[in-house]
C-alpha cells in the first residue's frame, strides 16, 4: 500500500463522508429555501402546492405597522448591543490577555457562562431579580440583557486575536513616550480591527435574533422581530410570515456578508502577512 494514495476501503469511507456532508448541508438549507420560495406563493394559505407567483405578501408586510415597529425596535436594540458589547468585549479581553490580576481565571470562566447557561434560566433569573427589587421591565433592561448574551462571543473572538498581537508593539510605543491610552488606540486597536468588526457583527446578529430571553425581558407592549414572528405564528402560518422570514434572512445574512467583504478589503489594504480571518 502506497503512502498518500487511498486504498479501496478509504475511498468508500471518503465517499460516504462526502455523501453525509451533502445530506447535512441539504438538511441545513432545505427548510430555509422552502420558506423563501413559499413567500412568493399567490395563495393565501401558507403551504404547497404553489398557486402562482406573487409579491403581494411583501406589499402586505410593508403595510403592517406592527411588523415595521418590531423591525425598527430590533434594529435599534441590535445596533446598541453591537456597539456597547464590542466596547466592553475589547477592554475585557485586553485586560484578560495583557494583565495579571487576582481572579483572572474565575473571570474568564464567568465571562463565557452566559453562552452556556440556557436562556430560559437567564430569562427567569433576571425577571425574578427585577421583580424582587420592584423595578419595571424597560428597554434598557432588554438591551443590557442582550449585551450579557453577546459578551462571551465578543470576548472570545477579540481575545483570540489579541493573543496574536505581540505586546512588543505596544511596549515600543510606550517607550517612545506614547500614553497608555494612545498606545492602545494607535497600535492595539487598529491591529484588532478584524476581530472587532467580526465581534460587532456577531453581537448584532445575536441580539437581532434573540427569542427565548427576549420573551421574558421585553417591556410591556414591545415586540422585537422574533417575538413578533412568534405571536404571528400563534395565529397561523401565512405566506406573510414566509415573506417576513425572507426579509429577515436578507438582513441577517446580508449585513455580515457585506461586513465580511469590507473586512476582507480592509485586510487586503492593510497587509498580506496577517492570517486570513473568517468572517465570524
Amino acid at each position, binding site marked *: 500500500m502506497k503512502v498518500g494514495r487511498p486504498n479501496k476501503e478509504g475511498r468508500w469511507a471518503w465517499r460516504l463522508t462526502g455523501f453525509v456532508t451533502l445530506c447535512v448541508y441539504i438538511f441545513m438549507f432545505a427548510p430555509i429555501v422552502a420558506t423563501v420560495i413559499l413567500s412568493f406563493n399567490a395563495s393565501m394559505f401558507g403551504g404547497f402546492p404553489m398557486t402562482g407567483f406573487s409579491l403581494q405578501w411583501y406589499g402586505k408586510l410593508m403595510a403592517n405597522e406592527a411588523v415595521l415597529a418590531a423591525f425598527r425596535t430590533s434594529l435599534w436594540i441590535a445596533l446598541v448591543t453591537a456597539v456597547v458589547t464590542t466596547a466592553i468585549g475589547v477592554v475585557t479581553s485586553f485586560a484578560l490577555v495583557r494583565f495579571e490580576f487576582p481572579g483572572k481565571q474565575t473571570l474568564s470562566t464567568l465571562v463565557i457562562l452566559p453562552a452556556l447557561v*440556557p436562556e430560559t434560566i437567564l430569562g427567569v433569573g433576571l425577571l425574578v431579580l427585577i421583580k424582587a427589587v420592584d423595578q419595571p421591565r424597560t428597554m434598557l433592561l432588554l438591551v443590557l440583557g442582550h449585551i450579557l448574551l453577546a*459578551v462571551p462571543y465578543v470576548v472570545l473572538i477579540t481575545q483570540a486575536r489579541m493573543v496574536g498581537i505581540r505586546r512588543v508593539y505596544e511596549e515600543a510605543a*510606550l517607550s517612545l513616550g506614547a500614553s497608555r491610552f494612545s498606545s492602545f488606540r494607535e497600535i492595539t486597536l487598529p491591529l484588532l480591527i478584524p476581530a472587532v468588526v467580526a465581534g460587532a457583527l456577531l453581537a448584532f446578529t445575536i441580539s437581532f435574533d434573540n*427569542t427565548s430571553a427576549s*420573551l421574558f425581558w421585553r417591556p410591556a407592549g414591545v415586540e422585537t422581530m*422574533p417575538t413578533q414572528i412568534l405571536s404571528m405564528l400563534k395565529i397561523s402560518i401565512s405566506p406573510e410570515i414566509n415573506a417576513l422570514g425572507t426579509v429577515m434572512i436578507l438582513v441577517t445574512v446580508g449585513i455580515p456578508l457585506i461586513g465580511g467583504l469590507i473586512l476582507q478589503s480592509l485586510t487586503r489594504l492593510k497587509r498580506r502577512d496577517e492570517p486570513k480571518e473568517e468572517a465570524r
Partner: protein
Amino acid sequence: MKNRWTLYDPRLASMLIAPVLLLLIFFLVLPIAVMAVYTFFTFVTAGVETSALTAANWHEFLTDSYYHGFLLKTLRVGAMTALLCGVLGYFPAYFIWATSFKHKWLLLLLLIVPFWISFTIRTFSWINILGEQGVINVALIRMGIISEPLPMLYTEGAVIMGLLHFLLPYMILNVYVSLESIDRTLIAAARSMGCTSAQAFREVTLPLSLPGLAAGLLLCFVLAAGSYVTPQLLGSGRDALFGNLIYDTIMSELNWPMGATLSIVLFVVLGFFAAIYTRYMGMSQIVKGLGG
C-alpha cells in the same frame, strides 16, 4: 510612565474589567442568587407571593413524579439530540477539514450562515417541510404514495429535528476546530509506517479530535435540554420539555416561586453535567469552539 503605575498594573486591569464585572454580577450572578432565594418564597395565588420562607416548592418538586418525568424526558431528548448531532456533525467537519476542494472557505461560510439566520425562522421553516401542506406530504400525495397527509409536525420527532437543525452547526464547528489543531504530519507518519487510511483515522485523527467532539456534545446537550421555543413551535403539548414547564409555570400559572424552583433545578442539573465535563476535559475546548 508618568506616574508610579507599572506597565501592566493590576489597578488598570481592575478598571478595564469593571464594566464586564458589573454586567456579570447584576445580570448573571445576582439573578441566579435571587432566584435561589425565591424558591423558598410562599405562593399565595396567581401572581401574588409572600416572602414568608417555606420549603413547600422544593417539597412539591421532590415528591411530584410529574416533574421527575419531564426532567428525565428532557435529559433523554437532550442526550438523543446531542448524540445525533455528534454522529451527523462529525462527517461534514471531517470532510471540510480533509477535502482538497479549492473553495473550502465556501463550505465553512455555508456552515456559519445558519448562525446568522433567525432561530425563530429556522425553526418555523420546518412547518413548511413537515406540515400537512408541507413539501414532504404534498410530494408524497402527488406521487400517489399516500392518500392522507402523514402527521409529522407536532411530534417529538419534529422537535428533535428542529433542535438538530439548530445545533448541528455548533457541533460541526467544534469538531472542525479540534481537527484543525491536529498536526497533519502525525497522520502522514502513521501512513508511512504502514497504517491504512482507516487505521490512521482510528489511531490518530479520531482520538485527537475527541476533545472537540466532547465539547460539541456538551454544548448541544445543554442547549437542547434548555430549549423551549422549539418544542413550543414544532411539538404538541405532550412534547413539552422542562423549559416549557418553567415558562408555563411563570407565564400562565403566574407561580413565580415554583418557576424559580424549576429553573434552579434545571440550572443545577445541567451545571452538574458541565462540571463533570470540565473536570475531565477542562474549559479550553469549549472556549475554542464558541470562538469559532
